[in-house]
C-alpha cells in the first residue's frame, strides 16, 4: 500500500473513531465511573511530570534569556518574557508532549494488548461497544485534564523562572511577578487553555486508534506504542502551528 493510501485509511479510521466516541456520549450506557478512573489515571497521574517539566523549563528560560535581557537593560521584563513564552507556547506544547509520552503510550499498549488477547472481540461479543466503553472515557479525560495540567505547568514554570532569577541573578521576586502579570493578557490565557483541548483530543484519538488497530501479536503492540507516541507528538507540533495562526487571527487587534 502506498503512503498516501495508507495515510488516507488512517485518517478515515481516526475520523470514524471520533464519530463513534461522540456518538457514545449521546447513547446509554454512559460510563461515568470509567471517566473518573481515567481522569485519575491520566490527570492526577501526570501531575508530577508536568510540574517538573514546567518548573525547569521556566528556570532554563531565565538562565538563557536573562543575560540577553540584561545586555539591553531590560531585566525588569524577565517575568513577562517567561510568562508569555510559557503560557502561549511552551506550557501547552511541552505538557502535551509529556502526556503523549506517558499516557498515549499507556493507552495504545493497553488497548493493543486487549486486541491481541481477543479481549476487544470478547467485549463486542458480549454486546458492548469498545468505542463507547474504552475510547470515549479516555478522550474525555484527556480533553478535561490536559488544560488543567497545562495551567499547572505554566504556574510552576513562572515560579521556577522567578526562583532561578532571584537565586542566580538577584532579581527581586516582586519585580519579576509584577512583570509577568503586566505582560500577560486575557487572550494569552484563552489561547493557552484552548490549545490543550485540541492536543488532548489528538493524543486520545491517535493512541486509541493505534491500540485498536494493533496486529501481529506482542511485537505489534510495541509497534503501536511507538507509532502512537511519534504520531501524537508530530501532530501536536503541527497542530500547534495552525492553532497559533487561527488564534492569532481570532484575537487580531490584540497583542498577537
Amino acid at each position: 500500500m502506498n503512503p498516501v493510501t495508507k495515510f488516507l485509511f488512517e485518517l478515515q479510521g481516526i475520523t470514524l473513531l471520533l464519530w463513534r466516541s461522540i456518538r457514545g456520549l449521546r447513547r446509554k450506557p454512559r460510563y461515568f465511573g470509567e471517566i473518573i478512573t481515567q481522569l485519575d489515571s491520566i490527570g492526577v497521574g501526570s501531575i508530577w511530570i508536568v510540574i517538573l517539566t514546567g518548573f525547569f523549563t521556566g528556570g532554563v528560560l531565565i538562565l538563557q534569556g536573562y543575560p540577553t535581557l540584561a545586555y539591553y537593560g531590560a531585566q525588569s521584563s524577565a517575568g513577562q518574557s517567561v510568562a508569555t513564552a510559557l503560557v502561549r507556547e511552551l506550557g501547552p506544547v511541552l505538557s502535551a508532549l509529556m502526556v503523549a509520552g506517558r499516557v498515549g503510550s499507556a493507552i495504545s499498549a493497553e488497548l493493543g494488548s486487549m486486541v491481541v488477547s481477543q479481549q476487544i472481540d470478547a467485549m463486542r461479543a458480549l454486546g458492548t461497544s469498545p468505542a463507547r466503553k474504552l475510547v470515549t472515557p479516555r478522550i474525555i479525560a484527556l480533553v478535561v485534564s490536559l488544560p488543567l495540567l497545562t495551567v499547572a505547568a505554566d504556574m510552576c514554570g513562572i515560579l521556577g523562572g522567578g526562583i532561578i532569577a532571584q537565586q542566580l541573578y538577584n532579581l527581586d521576586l516582586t519585580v519579576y511577578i509584577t512583570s509577568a502579570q503586566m505582560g500577560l493578557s486575557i487572550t494569552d490565557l484563552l489561547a493557552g487553555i484552548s490549545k490543550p483541548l485540541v492536543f488532548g483530543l489528538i493524543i486520545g484519538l491517535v493512541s486509541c486508534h493505534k491500540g485498536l488497530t494493533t496486529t501481529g501479536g506482542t511485537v505489534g503492540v510495541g509497534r503501536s506504542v511507538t507509532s502512537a507516541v511519534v504520531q501524537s507528538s508530530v501532530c501536536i507540533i503541527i497542530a500547534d502551528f495552525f492553532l497559533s495562526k487561527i488564534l492569532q487571527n481570532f484575537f487580531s487587534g490584540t497583542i498577537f
Partner: protein
Amino acid sequence: MSLGDKTINEKIDEIESEMVDRFAGRLIPAIEFRDVDLAFDDQIILDKVSFKLRRGETKLVLGGSGSGKSTIINLVLGLLKPDGGEIFVDGEEISGLDDQELMRVRKKIGMVFQEGALFDSLSVFENVAYRLTEENVDPDEIEHEVRRMLHFVDLDDAIDKMPSELSGGMRRRVGIARALVGNPSIVLFDEPTAGLDPPTARTICELAIKLRDLEDVSSIFVTHEMNNLEYISSEYAIVDGKGQVHFVEEGQSLCLINTEVMMLRQGSIIFSGKDEQLRKVDDPYIHKFIRGK
C-alpha cells in the same frame, strides 16, 4: 365417537395446531449460511459455504490451520462481514446489520474464545457478571446468576480470583461461564481445548455435552483435535434421580442425531454429516486428518 362436544378428528386437529404453534420456532435454524464468500485481498478464506445449525444441535467444525474455521464464528458474531452470501441467526439476516443492530443479535450468542479472553483487570466474578452489569441488572440477581454459572463449570471457589491467578483450563471454564450468562440459545466455541492437558480438555467437552443435552443450546464447536470429536459425537449426558450428571456412550445401537461434523479445507466444506460417516469417507485428506498419518 366424541370427546365432549368434539369429534376425535377435531381434537387431533386442535392438538396438531397446538404442536405446530409450540414448535414452529424450532423449525427455524439457529444459524444458517447461504453461499457465504470471504476473501482478504487475493486470498480466499471462505468459498460458497452453506450449512444449517438446527436447534439444540452441536456442529463440530474440523479443519487444519487456516481452513476458515474461526472465520465462520467471527462471521456469525458480525465481527467480520462476508463479501457475498447470506448469514441468518435465529432467522434474521445479519450481514447487512450495522454495529448497533449487531449488539442486539450478539446478546443471543455466547462466545468461548481460544484462550478464554478474560478481562485482565476484572475479577472472575466481574468477568462472569460483565454482560449483566452492562445491562444494569439488579446486583442480587447478578450474584445469583454468577454463582449458578460458576457452579455449572465447577469453579465455585474461584469467584474472587483474578484471571492471572487461574490455570489455562480454569480460564477457559470461566470463559464458558461468562458466555453462558443470560442463557444464550447459541454458543460458539473457538478451539476451547487448544493447548490443554487431556483431562482438562475432556472437562471442556463435557461442558459442551451438558449444554447440548441438558440446556438445549445450539452450538458450533471449532476444533482440530480428534479427541473432542470422539467425546462430543459419541457421548450424551443424563441426569439421575439424585440430580447427578452422567456421561453415557452411544454404543452400537444408538446414533446421536443432535451432533454433526463439518470439515473445511481451504475455505470449502469437504464433508458434512455424522461422525460414523466421516470415518467411512474415502478421501485421503480426511483419512490423514483423522489418523494423523
